[in-house]
């Protein structure tokens, strides 16, 4: 199975019934696969006139009660940013799959890169939270796609599945979990009557309001302006403060359950490699070679990159004397690792941003005692 195809399978198994998109390399297989598969399950696929319209249609479909997804790559991801922010502000569940290519601009459409790490975090304007998942195998693509849909529903937020060209186009054998082992999450529905319904009234401890679909009898107003519990605009400082804080808290509160990662050979390790996405495959090869050479190296592969798993990185990295962060950009996630380590431990970057997959040798070269 191909990585892009696995994203579609994971999303469908999570209950996705709507896709809107625009053709762009290297993500087009996702659109093609949804176009073929959605009508078979009674779902809807539409190829919109542009990237922005695709994002808008996804949010519209989400409000009409569907689990909705779009997919894109760098240039399209840039175009979608305004409406990703809108989805966050109105709390519309949706998933954006970004199969990264080398940028900036049109860049290298069929080459791998991880240059959108910071854009996935900060691409849309304003001080918003972000939930971003990074698969480093085809199996991951399936599982994280499923997870992304679930989290979008549970937290009422856009979730970004950040692939790269290598993982998107990679074909490998995967054993998918049994469907009865997968737990599907659905957005909360209101308990009271339509007459007493206030769309942003926070009644539950999880800080997440229910979202009834259009046409279900619950009539309410939704706006990207700051709004109070009734959904209508307000510029009162206490209202704006409360909304922005809640948007962050509803995710922060569950942060530790959101950190997905893998670790290898941590016991007795005095050096650590941290990586994610396709780079993590080279990192794993580098780790294996280092181990064979007798070096005490550990490996941390991050699947959740935003919110940044600060606690995990601290826990795993605090007792090391060298940390290498391997990524296909000029150094994006390394900044977070440096911040967490606060100069107590040297942090080195193994970086590559020329459209070629980073090699194990490049990563090995940053470890101590290799030669």
């Amino acid at each position, binding site marked *: 199975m191909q990585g892009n195809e696995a994203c579609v399978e994971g999303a469908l198994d999570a209950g996705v019934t709507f896709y809107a998109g625009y053709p762009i390399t290297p993500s087009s297989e996702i659109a093609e696969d949804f176009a073929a598969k959605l009508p078979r399950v009674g779902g809807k696929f539409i190829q919109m006139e542009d990237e922005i319209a695709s994002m*808008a249609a996804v*949010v519209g479909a989400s*409000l009409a009660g569907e689990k*909705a997804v779009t997919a894109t790559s760098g240039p399209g991801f840039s175009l979608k940013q305004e409406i990703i922010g*809108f989805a966050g502000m109105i709390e519309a569940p949706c998933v954006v799959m970004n199969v990264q290519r080398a940028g900036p601009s049109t860049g290298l459409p069929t080459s791998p890169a991880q240059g959108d790490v910071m854009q996935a975090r900060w691409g849309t304007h304003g001080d918003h939270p972000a939930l971003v998942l990074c698969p480093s195998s085809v199996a991951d693509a399936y599982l994280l796609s499923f997870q992304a849909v679930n989290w979008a529903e549970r937290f009422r937020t856009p979730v970004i599945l950040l692939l790269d060209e290598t993982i998107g186009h990679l074909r490998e054998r995967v054993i998918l979990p049994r469907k009865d082992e997968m737990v599907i999450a659905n957005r909360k529905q209101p308990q009271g009557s339509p007459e007493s319904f206030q769309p942003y009234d926070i009644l539950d401890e999880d800080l997440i309001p229910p979202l009834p679909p*259009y*046409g279900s009898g619950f*009539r309410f107003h939704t*706006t*990207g302006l700051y709004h109070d519990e009734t959904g209508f605009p307000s510029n009162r400082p206490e209202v704006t403060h409360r909304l922005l804080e809640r948007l962050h808290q509803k995710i922060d509160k569950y942060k530790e359950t959101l950190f997905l990662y893998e670790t290898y050979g941590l016991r007795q390790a005095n050096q650590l490699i941290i990586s994610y996405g396709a780079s993590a495959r080279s990192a794993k090869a580098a780790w294996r070679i280092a181990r064979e050479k007798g070096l005490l190296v550990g490996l941390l592969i991050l699947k959740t990159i935003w919110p940044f798993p600060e606690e995990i990185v601290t826990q795993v990295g605090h007792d090391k004397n060298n940390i290498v962060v391997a990524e296909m950009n000029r150094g994006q996630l390394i900044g977070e690792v440096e911040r967490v380590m606060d100069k107590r431990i040297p942090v080195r970057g193994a970086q590559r941003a020329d459209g070629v997959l980073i090699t194990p040798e490049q990563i090995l070269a940053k470890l101590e005692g290799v030669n």
Partner: protein
Amino acid sequence: MELEKYFRIEKLPHIWCPGCGHGSVMMSIVKGIDKAGWDPTKVVVVSGIGCSSRAPGYMNFNTLHTVHGRPIAFATGIKLANPELKVIVITGDGDGAAIGGNHLIHACRRNIGINVVLFNNQIYGMTSGQYSPMTPQGSMATTSPYGNIEPPFDLCELTRSAGANFVARGTVYHLPKLDNYMEKAFAREGFSYVEAISQCPTYYGRRNKLRSPLEMLEWQKKNAVDIKKAQDMDPEELKGKIVTGIFAEKDEEEYTSKYDQLISSVQGGKK
């Protein structure tokens, strides 16, 4: 009165300036919904950004105030997700003709069952009076301080050519006619476009020697030409006139019903 149930009375007074035509257009839409007999819980009113786009806030339906220029794209997602919903888009000449122009023509082409009502006040009101793609040539605006040299868009001609099932243009001055266009638009399957010429005394009138809302309405009265009469007039005579009336009335098949058939045939083929 009878139509009050369609409004969120507690949200009034509205934000529009004294003499603005937008309230009249909003009322015309509500009358159309009432005539259509739609269940208010099945009606979704979507808007973009601008003065007209604030109307849904006062209307007691499912209402969605989106981002600038994209309400038709949001509405497309809503309608395709649940074709039982009655989806109305409220947009303006900036939102619908400038930043949102591409979505408008593609929604016409698909002939998706969305009813677009464009409040054309010929100016960017919310941002205090910049010229729009529908500002008449020669008009003064904050960004055309020496007069606008761009010709205005005729969106009725555009939407008709692009495939809309129903297209009409009316004015706030000729309200009963506008009510009639709304009724016809909402009764028809497929995409409809109704343009309502509205007036902005604050940012258009004051700069263009139309000193009061009344003068602006008189301008509408004087310059409106019925489409049937316009057919016999030469282009020189039609310069600066507003052609009103019904531009298209067709029964081409609607997009979501075609998609539902596609689903049936794909699922049927599998079994």
